[in-house]
């Protein structure tokens, strides 16, 4: 079941709110379970979100492509979203 991928760039960008940190922590757990060894990045640089043309926080990007915008899904859904985009 596990896909082993390297050189993935997973990044959670948010304004530093509770929801953003929660998404970051959940992403770390899910990444580990999916066999992704690269560290998940966490950024509070809002300009990155705006520069991508987005307007909600937090955002999860996989290789700089936004895959989740403005919400905190449950673990299973997050797993689904990440594995669909790697």
């Amino acid at each position, binding site marked *: 079941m596990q896909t082993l991928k390297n050189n993935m760039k997973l990044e959670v960008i*948010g*304004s*530093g*709110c*509770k*929801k*953003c940190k929660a998404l970051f922590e959940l992403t770390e757990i899910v990444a580990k379970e999916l066999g992704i060894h690269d560290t998940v990045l966490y950024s509070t640089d*809002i*300009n990155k*979100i*705006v*520069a991508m*043309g*987005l*307007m*909600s*926080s*937090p955002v999860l990007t996989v290789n700089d492509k*936004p*895959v989740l*915008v*403005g*919400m*905190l*899904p*449950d673990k299973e*859904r997050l797993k689904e979203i990440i594995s669909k985009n790697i």
Partner: protein
Amino acid sequence: MFYPIQLLADWLTYTVFGIIPKTLLASAVNFFIFDTIKIFILLAGIIFIVSIIRSYLPPEKIRVILSRKNKYIGNVPASLLGIITPFCSCSAIPLFLGFVQAGVPLGTTFSFLIASPMINEVALVLLLGLFGWKIAIIYIVTGLIISILSGVVIGSLKVENLVESFVYENSVNGNNLELPSLSRIERINYALDYTTDILKKVWPYILVGIGLGAWIHGYLPADFLVEYAGSGKWYAVPLAVLIGIPLYSNAAGVIPLVSALTEKGVSMGTTLAFMMSVTALSLPEFMILKKVMKIKLIFIFAGIVSVGIVFTGYLFNIILK
């Protein structure tokens, strides 16, 4: 429509818990059970519907609509679109930057920023469930008028110089942004996720709010607050607005509580003003906005909205006597 829930509440109160009917305790327990079930059914239904609509109109699309609008006309759609957009203070900055940098006028941006938290689906459900549809409609319409007019006023003040200069140094072109397209299943999943997310966040506040409300409903005498907060007291409205400012995160609990207080003599205009202040004026949001604008502009913004809310309070204290 809620008759079956009343039957259930009656059955639980009198048969299951065995409380003697017509006592204060029975009245409070019955009220609590009925309101809680009704509110949660309404919440789940309405949040789900709003989330589905929203999946078609995310802020990124709204921006495209608003950036094409004329300076003053844009305030109307901005306020209307604010209704369906959820507002979390964590998104205040990206929304503000995203709008302004795409060329949406400042006044239009403010109309959106005011309407979005003020007319949110959780507040609407609570208003509808606890105050009835007339008050809910009055709240929506006056809320819209306040957001539109506040935006127009801010727009005409030419306060662009009070926005931090870095905001105007960047610009984004939101027109050719490709958002991940969603299938019907994904939209439903998104709406389900969003609904459970909101319910998880608000249920304790609502339970405490309805619980306190039930207690007030059952135990406090009917004219308990007339003396302090009746429509004859001129200071009730501004005081209510002031108390509402730090309460934003608890809006879900505050509304059930004030609904019980109106039964005990707080006049309707004062109640409306209080709820609007709780939702529209939020201390954490003001703190966050400091990153993108000068404090003076935050005061102007808060001041104009407060004046609108206080006016609404006085007006409905006269009309809804």
